[in-house]
């Protein structure tokens, strides 16, 4: 029963190990919530409002109750007594924030198309769907707040009786007079307006929940396709009035989330309440249309950004004014999303004066919330588009103007004008690598050739230099932002008697490959093979403490906790080894799972054998408890600040307006990498999602507040066929904030890519006089821009050459 610890001495951290999660996912063996076989389970269907805003004047469940297979049906009023509190919003960003009470089912007033008004529970999904179709709800339609700016000026009330649609105003204005002075004295100013369209997260696995009452050991088990089993448990307890310790939450395989499963949803509460009430398991799997209408959406902002610059293009001040669409209700972190961008509207540039404000506004549309990048993609888009406009205004090369403004590699740790401390960076280094990989000068030559010949296929090159903040922490800083949770993560590492290792993590993967990465970290620490490390997660009965997975926090926070816990195992083992070898603990050297006596290497103890000795506990030092196990909770000292440069190359058909993304170069710096293959995967998916916002995706609403893109035939998620192979590069600037030197990489691709692509499209057409472009960049929009610019282009060209103008009114 002795373990062979030394075999693992080869280090695996830093290698491109294949993900251990993938065989099950690829072969269909992975089990998602919908796959769970639960005998006797009832199926829930939700009856949803077809109106953006309506008074509910009656719910007749008679016909539904009479349908075959129907067990029960309830209106919002019927279930009103089930809730101990409204659904939670964990981020009241200001003390006076407005938040209309939000319950799992609307009672008197439905506030968006998709708002639940009744539920049916039946013995099959089909029976539930058939019965839901005959629930007769009487509505009295009300004026709806649909357009964001109209809603901001209270043209129609999103909620009856609310004094205003404005949820809050949040400002970051450290030195207003400095900003005013910079604009007053600026040689050049840029003023742009951008629309961040709403996006549907469209995780491959829709949401699903299955609540199983337990005859013993707690009261209910909640299986949910969630990113946040721990947070969900606490919130379910508080909202449904069930003592928290009686709820166990399990997230089985979860097929993507992108923030959309970082929430506490009505359906989770409904299944919980119904399962307790009916004493039967109750389950629900979201349909695609529901995923579009009733899962949170992302983005939804109107941004105004102004730059003040010197004549040679040095940015002296940034002023950003944001209107953010909350949708109908505040979900878990809805109001905080713009704040995650609030500190980053100056991007990677050393800007002395800064002002930001945001108004959160209710509309009668699906609630918004965190979606991959949450706030940072919006901020990066605004500054990176505006910097391109500044370059065009001054007739400068977009790479050159960025160089001129970068925060220098020698300025880190960098105290930003917005009050953050950027941990480490080398922005120019990443730009240089990216321009080299893209053959930037060659591209510019080719572009010049095409412009001269006037060929219909024009070439555009777009840059995006980004920095982002991830790994939300430390907890006391979150307190200062009124965020009602901490930023720590918990871990346990335990050695089993056979020398194998069990790791318990409070982070909760849903596609990121935590099991692979965590096993690599522990393998190197303990000198075992990664295959000998099992990683347990996503079950509150197994990992009681955790803050789950979102915001690119898992490695820098959760991974650090893992390493700390492993170190505690080693420290305990050291005492046992010293006892066995009869030396002082300080006289032992540790490497790769082996303690040896300093200067006498043959006297050694293997970790595996020590684990067995600790398990049998026959001969432990005085006072030592049996077993080798260490737990740690890590609360970081700072966010981490990944950065990089992305280059998009597009070919634009000026006749049809079609944009082809022909090349894409991404150079990212996420500090030290545990598994570069996983980093590649995160970057690939991130780029695809960010490009999707630039070119294809939009949750489009009509004037009455109906979502028009309710299927994947209308909501254009790109496939591999729409994207080129990406050229990836990396620079490595470790973070000083955590012992791994790691920064987040889960969102970087999404943050960087959207402005790179739109900048490239504008760049392709700039010589024709095109200066702005809305997202998504549809062929029709490009065609109209080319057509609209034709004729004026000569005039504008000569103006640009004189380079003394202040441009106003970009996006429109």
């Amino acid at each position: 029963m002795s373990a062979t610890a030394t075999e693992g001495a080869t280090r695996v951290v830093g290698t491109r190990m294949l993900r251990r999660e993938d065989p099950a996912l690829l072969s269909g063996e992975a089990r998602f919530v919908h796959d769970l076989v639960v005998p006797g389970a009832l199926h829930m269907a939700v009856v949803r409002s077809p109106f953006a805003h309506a008074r509910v004047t009656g719910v007749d469940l008679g016909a539904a109750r009479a349908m075959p297979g129907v067990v029960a049906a309830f209106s919002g009023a019927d279930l009103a007594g089930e809730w101990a509190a409204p659904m939670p919003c964990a981020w009241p960003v200001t003390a006076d924030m407005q938040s209309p009470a939000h319950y799992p089912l609307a009672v008197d007033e439905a506030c968006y198309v998709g708002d639940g008004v009744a539920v049916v529970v039946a013995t099959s999904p089909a029976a539930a769907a058939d019965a839901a179709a005959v629930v007769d709800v009487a509505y009295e339609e009300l004026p709806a707040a649909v357009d964001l700016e109209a809603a901001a000026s209270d043209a129609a009330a999103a909620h009856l009786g609310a004094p205003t649609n404005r949820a809050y105003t949040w400002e970051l204005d450290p030195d207003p007079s400095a900003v005013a002075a910079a604009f007053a004295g600026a040689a050049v100013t840029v003023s742009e307006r951008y629309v961040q369209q709403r996006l549907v997260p469209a995780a491959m696995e829709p949401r699903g929940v299955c609540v199983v009452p337990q005859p013993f050991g707690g009261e209910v088990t909640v299986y949910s396709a969630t990113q946040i089993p721990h947070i969900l448990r606490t919130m379910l307890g508080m909202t449904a009035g069930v003592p928290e310790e009686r709820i166990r939450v399990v997230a089985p395989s979860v097929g993507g989330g992108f923030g959309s499963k970082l929430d506490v949803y009505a359906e989770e509460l409904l299944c919980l309440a119904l399962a307790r009430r009916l004493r039967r398991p109750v389950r629900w799997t979201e349909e695609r249309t529901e995923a579009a209408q009733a899962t949170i959406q992302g983005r939804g902002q109107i941004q105004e950004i102004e730059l003040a610059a010197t004549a040679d293009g040095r940015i002296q001040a940034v002023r950003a004014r944001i209107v953010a669409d909350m949708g109908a209700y505040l979900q878990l972190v809805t109001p905080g999303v713009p704040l995650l961008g609030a500190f980053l509207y100056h991007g990677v540039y050393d800007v002395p004066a800064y002002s930001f404000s945001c108004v959160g506004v209710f509309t009668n549309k699906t609630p918004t919330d965190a979606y991959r990048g949450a706030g940072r993609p919006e901020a990066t888009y605004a500054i990176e588009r505006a910097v391109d406009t500044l370059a065009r205004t001054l007739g400068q090369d977009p790479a050159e103007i960025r160089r001129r403004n970068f925060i220098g590699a020698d300025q880190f740790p960098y105290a930003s004008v917005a009050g953050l401390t950027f941990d480490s960076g080398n922005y120019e280094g990443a730009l240089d690598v990216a321009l080299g990989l893209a053959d930037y000068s060659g591209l510019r030559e080719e572009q010049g050739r095409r412009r001269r010949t006037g060929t219909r296929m024009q070439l555009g090159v777009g840059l995006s230099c980004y920095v982002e903040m991830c790994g939300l922490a430390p907890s006391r800083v979150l307190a200062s932002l009124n965020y009602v949770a901490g930023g720590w993560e918990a871990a346990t590492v335990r050695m089993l008697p056979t020398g194998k290792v069990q790791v318990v993590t409070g982070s909760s993967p849903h596609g990121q490959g935590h099991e692979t990465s965590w096993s690599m970290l522990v393998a190197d620490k303990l000198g075992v093979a990664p295959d000998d490390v099992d990683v347990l997660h996503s079950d509150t009965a197994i990992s009681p403490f955790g803050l789950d997975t979102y915001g690119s926090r898992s490695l820098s926070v959760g991974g650090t906790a893992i390493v700390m816990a492993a170190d505690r195992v080693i420290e305990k083992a050291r005492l046992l080894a010293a006892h066995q070898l009869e030396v002082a603990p300080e006289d032992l050297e540790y490497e790769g799972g082996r303690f040896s006596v300093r200067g006498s290497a043959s006297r050694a103890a293997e970790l595996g054998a020590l684990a067995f000795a600790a398990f049998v506990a026959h001969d432990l030092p005085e006072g030592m408890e049996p077993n080798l196990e260490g737990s740690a909770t890590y609360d970081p000292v700072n966010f981490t600040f990944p950065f990089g440069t992305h280059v998009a190359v597009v070919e634009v058909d000026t006749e049809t307006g079609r944009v082809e993304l022909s090349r894409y170069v991404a150079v990212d710096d996420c500090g030290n990498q545990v598994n570069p293959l996983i980093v590649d995967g995160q970057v690939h998916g991130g780029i695809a999602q960010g490009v999707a916002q630039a070119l294809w995706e939009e949750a489009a609403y009509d004037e009455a507040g109906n979502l028009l893109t309710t299927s994947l035939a209308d909501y254009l998620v790109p496939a591999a066929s729409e994207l080129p192979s990406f050229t990836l590069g990396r620079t490595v600037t470790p973070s000083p904030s955590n012992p791994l030197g790691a920064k987040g990489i889960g969102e970087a691709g999404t943050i960087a890519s959207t402005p790179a692509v739109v900048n490239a499209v504008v760049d392709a057409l700039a010589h024709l006089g095109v200066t702005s472009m809305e997202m998504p960049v549809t062929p029709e929009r490009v065609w109209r821009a080319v057509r609209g610019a034709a004729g004026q282009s000569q005039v504008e060209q000569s103006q640009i050459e004189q380079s003394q103008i202040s441009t106003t009114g970009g996006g429109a």
Partner: protein
Amino acid sequence: MIPASFEYRRAGSVDEALALLRQDPDGTKLLAGGHSLLPLMKLRLATPGVLVDVGRIGGLSYVRDAGDHVAIGALTRHRDLETSDVARSEVPLLAHVAGQVGDPQVRHRGTIGGSLAHGDPASDLPAAVLALGGTLVVQGPGGTREVPVDGFFLGFLETALGPDEMLTEIRVRKGAAGWGFQKFNRRAQDWAIVGVAAVVGSDPRVALVNMGSTTVRARGVEEALAAGASPADAAARAAEGLDPPSDLNASTEYRQHLVTVLVRRALEGATTGRG
């Protein structure tokens, strides 16, 4: 995404399918590849009481050289048409277009008969068949009748097929001097925003995808071509008399522009023989 309940019947022969249809023509739908019908049913936009699965009727999947025309069985899948040697050599436009439908999954399930019978102006194969010119063979209670393709598409999702009839064979003319096809969409697997199937030679025919409530011919273009106009001049008339739809992907005005560009490209491709 859960269809309303329905009864499922499988027909072993055309006669059996027709007999089943006759019991309740308006409440019954034939099911071929299911790739147009099932999405409608899942959205509950179609709620047939009975589905008659014709997918396993033998002998209706073929592509045959029949002298002056090529005959295609109604149950021929897009993939089989795309890869058929007869289609590739005798009616290359049709083989090419079959390869442009949706994605591989769709092409392995969808049938040409289903595509034509569905009557969706956004579909590709109807335009190819309309451009080639030909005849559709239809069986019904009264026996077999032949419907010229020019009279087949009557309205949005509406064809000359009666509710008790089944399309069994599609006949397209051989011998086009040149052909061109253009499909414009935003993602590779999508339906066309606008599409053009063109056949040039002594009897030029140009059919358009998604430019009206049915698959339509660009009569102005054909007239101009017959009168000897250049591709560019003929293409300028592509939107003549048409009122294309406006949707999330394109406005009416943009479609009217796009069709002139795409018709020109299709004609240029056809005359240079590159397709």
